[in-house]
């Protein structure tokens, strides 16, 4: 079965490359590089140490933005359970506003406010991912099984321990879902933030290549971008999912 799937995947990729090559050859356009040109440009980037500085910078900004965005989202999400006022604010104002506001608008606003710096991409990521965490945790808080909290409170009056041992573990699957979509979105948002608001990083390099009409380089940077995203999704998240699915699979079906 697995073997069969591999073949199909390989065939699909081969067909995609063939089609790309065909269009590139037929259109004969210097702004449409062939797969070979792209791989060449990719190789040039790979052997240049500077590339990794830019990738690292982008990574660093993504992580800080994610940490900030997830913290804010989680705090807002949890607060809805304990305060009706916060629940209304979150549902009526924060969620619709942040959900519908295009990431590029945040990027532009932050460029004007904070100029070309680390702050612009970081804040862009933060504002884009916070709603993911907020809405998932909010849902998790709604689904919380109060009978388990009651069970725990027959043994202790220590509320912080009940939070740590009973309430937070119930939220882990929701946190995982939020992290998954959050990381994907953050990775796209950081490029936007860097495209307009930075003088280094993958987004900035993409912009440079674009401005110099180096289409094969634009494609090559995009390849880097996709490869890192796929590694995260397939390796990191799949690993976590496989490791914890036995524990978690029943939590959400309560």
């Amino acid at each position, binding site marked *: 079965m697995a073997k069969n799937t591999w073949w199909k995947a390989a065939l699909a990729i081969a067909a995609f490359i063939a089609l790309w090559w065909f269009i590139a050859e037929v259109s004969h356009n210097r702004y449409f590089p062939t797969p070979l040109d792209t791989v060449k440009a990719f190789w040039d980037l790979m052997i240049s140490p500077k590339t990794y500085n830019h990738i690292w910078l982008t990574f660093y900004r993504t992580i800080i933005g994610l940490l900030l965005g997830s913290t804010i989202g989680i705090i807002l999400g949890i607060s809805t359970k304990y305060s009706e006022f916060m629940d209304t604010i979150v549902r009526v104002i924060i969620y619709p506003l942040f959900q519908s506001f295009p990431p590029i608008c945040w990027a532009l606003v932050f460029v004007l406010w904070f100029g070309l710096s680390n702050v612009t991409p970081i804040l862009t990521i933060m504002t884009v991912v916070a709603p993911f965490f907020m809405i998932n945790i909010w849902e998790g808080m709604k689904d919380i099984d109060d009978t388990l909290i009651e069970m725990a409170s027959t043994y202790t*009056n220590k509320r912080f321990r009940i939070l740590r041992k009973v309430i937070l573990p119930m939220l882990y699957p929701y946190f995982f879902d939020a992290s998954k979509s959050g990381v994907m979105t953050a990775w796209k948002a950081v490029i936007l933030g860097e495209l307009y608001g930075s003088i280094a990083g993958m987004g900035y390099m993409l912009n440079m290549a674009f401005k110099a009409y180096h289409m094969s380089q634009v494609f090559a940077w995009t390849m880097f971008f996709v490869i890192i995203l796929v590694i995260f999704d397939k390796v990191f998240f799949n690993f976590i999912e496989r490791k914890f699915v036995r524990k978690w699979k029943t939590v959400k079906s309560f």
Partner: protein
Amino acid sequence: MENSEVILKIDDVSFEYGKLKVLEQISFDVKKNETVCILGPSGCGKTTLLRLISGLATTQHGNVTVSGVSSSQGHDYKQHLGLVFQEPRLLPWRTTIDNVLIPFELNQDKVTEEQKEKGMQALKLVGLESFAENYSHELSGGMRQRVALARAIVTDPDILLLDEPLTGLDVHTKEELQDEILSLKEKTKRTMLWVTHDPQEAIYIADRIIVLSNRPTVVREIISVNEPYPRTRMSQNALDLEKRIRNLFSED
């Protein structure tokens, strides 16, 4: 039984939700090693009474003490209790043994080796030591309730409170568990307060039955079941008692 030490004392307890009187001047006690059943029709305030005894609700009038500690002392009071609910209420992300150890973890940072040993002992008592590493969704309904029982006795509480613990199980499992809980009681010398709506269950397991009336709930009668264990379910004595209890209910 006359000179035995009193473990649980309910003294003149009343409770109201707004204007609705739920409990009125309830008084009784449970002595060491005794099994007392609270029997009453559905909706008569049994659960409210048990919530007051378990410290989940605070008494408005009257006193509840376990081993001399008043329920108003909250945290300290709770250390003397073990509670089994109608449903197992297991934490689905924890293995069986980790569920049994949760009462310790809710009170201290690290579970000691000795406590882990106690957890395994409790699992052994309910016959589930070989399921220690399973998750609750891998167990049957009866097994889950056994885990809940192990969790309730792991801290060696002064009194075990059971809130209709066998409701929702099939007759066979129910009777099997009744026997198991009784034998566990014998082995570990437990004191139990068992809430039920089933007269047959009460007659089969209790030393004394506290029959409650409908709202506002008062203690209608306290019946001693003077029959040695192990009992037979359909003995003449049991049938007579059941008739007497059903007559009490129909007077409401």
